[in-house]
C-alpha cells in the first residue's frame, strides 16, 4: 500500500498541498461566478479618465475628488480644463479621451491682491478677539484699510500644500508649492485672493484691492493703489474698474507693461511668481546655516496673552 512507501509526515505534506489547491480552485470558481453575477457596468471612460487625473483629491475642480470629477467629465457635465494641479497636460489628455478640442489652458495660481506689510498698514488697532481673519473681518476698525489683508492667516490654515505663509503680516504665496486648488481664495473673508492664469513664471498683477479714492487710500496704506489710472493709459490690456485698474489676462502680453510698471507711483503694479534667476543669484552669496541651533526659550516667554 501507499502507506508502506510514504511516511506519515510525507502524507501530511502531500495532503496539505492537496487541500490548499482544492480550496484555491473552489474559491476561484466562486469568486469568478460572483464577478460575473455582480458585475457593475462602469463607463470604461471613467476608469481611463481617473487614471489620467493626478489623484491628489484636492477638490479644486469643485467636485469631491478626482473620481467624481472623472465621472462628471465622462457624463459631459464638467469641463475638461478644471483640474488645476494637472494643468495643460492633463486637460489635453482628458480632451483627447473625450474627443473634444481644448484651447490652451494655463495653470491658475493664487494671487494675493494686497502688498501692504504690517508697517505699511495705517490706522491699525490692537485687536484682542479670536485671531482669525473671519472673526476680525466682522469687527470694524481692526485696520484702516477695509479691503486689504488682515494677516491672521486663514489662508495659511486652509492651504494643504504649505504654499501660503504670512510674511511680515501679509499672506504670501510660495509659487514653488502652489498647485492652484483655490482653498486659500475660498478661505479669505475679504476675497483678496484670486486665481490668475500664469502664462509666464512671473506675472504682472495689481497688488491692491482698495476701491476707494486716492486720498482715502493714502490715509490707510503706504503702498495701496491710489487709482491714478496711469497704468491703464500706458498699457492697452489694462482698464479702470472704478478706482482700481484690472488686467485682462486673456490678452495678457508682458511687453506692454514696461512703461506702466515704471510709472506706477505706488507699489501696486508688480511682478509676482517664482523667483527669477537674477533673484536667486542675488541671494546666492548669502550663507545658509547648515544646522539651525535651537534656543531654549519656551514659547510662553514672549507670548502676548490674548483673551
Amino acid at each position, binding site marked *: *500500500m*501507499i*502507506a*508502506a512507501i*510514504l511516511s*506519515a509526515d510525507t*502524507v*501530511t505534506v502531500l*495532503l*496539505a498541498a492537496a*487541500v*490548499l489547491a482544492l*480550496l*484555491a480552485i473552489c*474559491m476561484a470558481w*466562486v*469568486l469568478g461566478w*460572483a*464577478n460575473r453575477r*455582480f*458585475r*457593475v457596468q462602469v463607463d470604461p471612460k471613467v476608469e481611463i479618465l481617473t487614471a489620467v487625473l493626478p489623484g491628489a483629491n484636492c477638490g479644486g475642480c469643485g467636485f469631491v475628488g478626482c473620481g467624481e470629477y472623472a465621472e462628471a467629465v465622462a457624463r459631459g457635465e464638467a469641463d475638461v480644463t478644471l483640474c488645476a494641479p494637472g494643468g495643460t497636460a492633463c486637460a489635453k489628455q482628458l480632451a483627447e479621451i473625450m474627443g473634444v478640442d481644448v484651447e490652451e489652458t494655463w495653470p491658475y495660481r493664487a494671487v494675493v491682491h494686497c502688498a501692504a506689510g504690517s508697517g505699511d498698514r495705517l490706522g491699525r488697532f490692537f485687536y484682542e478677539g479670536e485671531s482669525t481673519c473671519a472673526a476680525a473681518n466682522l469687527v470694524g476698525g481692526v485696520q484702516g484699510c477695509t479691503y486689504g489683508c488682515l494677516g491672521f492667516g486663514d489662508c495659511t490654515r486652509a492651504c494643504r500644500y504649505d504654499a501660503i505663509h504670512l510674511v511680515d503680516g501679509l499672506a504670501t504665496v510660495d509659487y514653488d508649492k502652489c498647485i492652484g486648488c483655490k482653498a486659500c481664495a475660498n478661505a479669505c473673508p475679504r476675497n483678496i485672493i484670486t486665481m490668475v492664469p500664469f502664462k509666464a513664471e512671473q506675472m504682472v498683477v495689481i497688488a491692491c484691492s482698495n476701491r476707494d479714492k486716492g486720498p482715502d487710500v493714502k490715509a490707510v496704506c503706504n503702498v495701496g493703489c491710489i487709482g491714478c489710472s496711469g497704468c491703464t493709459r500706458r498699457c492697452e490690456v489694462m482698464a479702470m474698474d472704478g478706482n482700481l485698474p484690472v488686467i485682462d489676462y486673456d490678452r495678457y502680453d508682458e511687453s506692454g507693461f514696461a512703461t506702466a510698471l515704471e510709472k506706477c507711483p505706488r507699489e501696486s503694479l508688480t511682478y509676482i511668481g517664482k523667483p527669477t534667476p537674477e533673484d536667486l543669484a542675488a541671494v546666492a552669496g548669502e550663507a545658509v546655516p547648515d544646522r539651525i541651533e535651537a534656543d531654549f526659550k519656551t514659547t510662553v516667554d514672549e507670548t502676548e496673552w490674548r483673551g
Partner: protein
Amino acid sequence: MDTFIILVQIAIGAALINNFVLHYFVGICPFLGVSRRIDTAFGMGCAVTFVISIAALLSWTFTYFILRPDAPLPAWVWRTAGGDPGTTIDLSVLSYIMYIFVIASSVQFVEMYVRKFFPPLYKSFGVFLPLITTNCAILFACLEIMKHLQDPTKLWGLHEALTLAVGGGVGFTIAITLMAGIREELEMCDVPKPLAGAGISLITAGILAMAFMGFTGVDKGIQRTLEVWFK
C-alpha cells in the same frame, strides 16, 4: 436548555464582556479609521459582522473536517492509504493560511456584493472595505473557534461557532458606533492642539475600553437568571 444558556453566554461574552475591540484590542484599524461618522461606522460594523459570520461558517467547517487533530478527512485518507491506525495526520499547521485565504475570499465576495447592491455604502467605505481582509478581529474569531475544536471531548458545534462570530460582530458594531458617536461630538470640541486627531481618538478608545470592563461578571448573573427561569 443548557445549550441555549451556553449560546447566550457565548454571545454576551463575545459582544460585551470580551468585546473584540475593547477587550482583546483586535480590529483597531477600522475601529479608528472608519469611526468618523455614525452611518459609515454602522455600515462598517454590519459589513464586518457579515464577513465574520461567513468566515466563521467556513473556518468551522474546514477546521472541523480537515484541520483539527482528529479530523475525519485526513484520518480517512490515511486509512484508505493503508496507514497505521495508531498515527494521526494533523493538518492544523494550515490553520492560519487557510483562515486568511477564506477571509480574503469572503471579503472580495462582500465587496462585489456591496458594490452591486449598495453603491453609496461602497463609496463611503472607500479603501476600508478591502481592509477588512486584514481585520484581525475576523482572524481572531477564526482562531478562537479553532481553539475550541482542539479538545475532542468538548468540541464546539457550528451553532456555537456562529454565535461567537455574530456576537463578536455585534460587539464590534456596538464599539465602532459608540466611538463614532463620541467622535462626532468631539468635532465640536476645543481639543488641545497636542492631543488633536489621533491622540484624542486613542484616549477616547481607552476610556471606552475601561468602561466596558464594567461588564465583567455579567455572564455569571445572566447564567443564574436563565437557570432559575428554565427550572
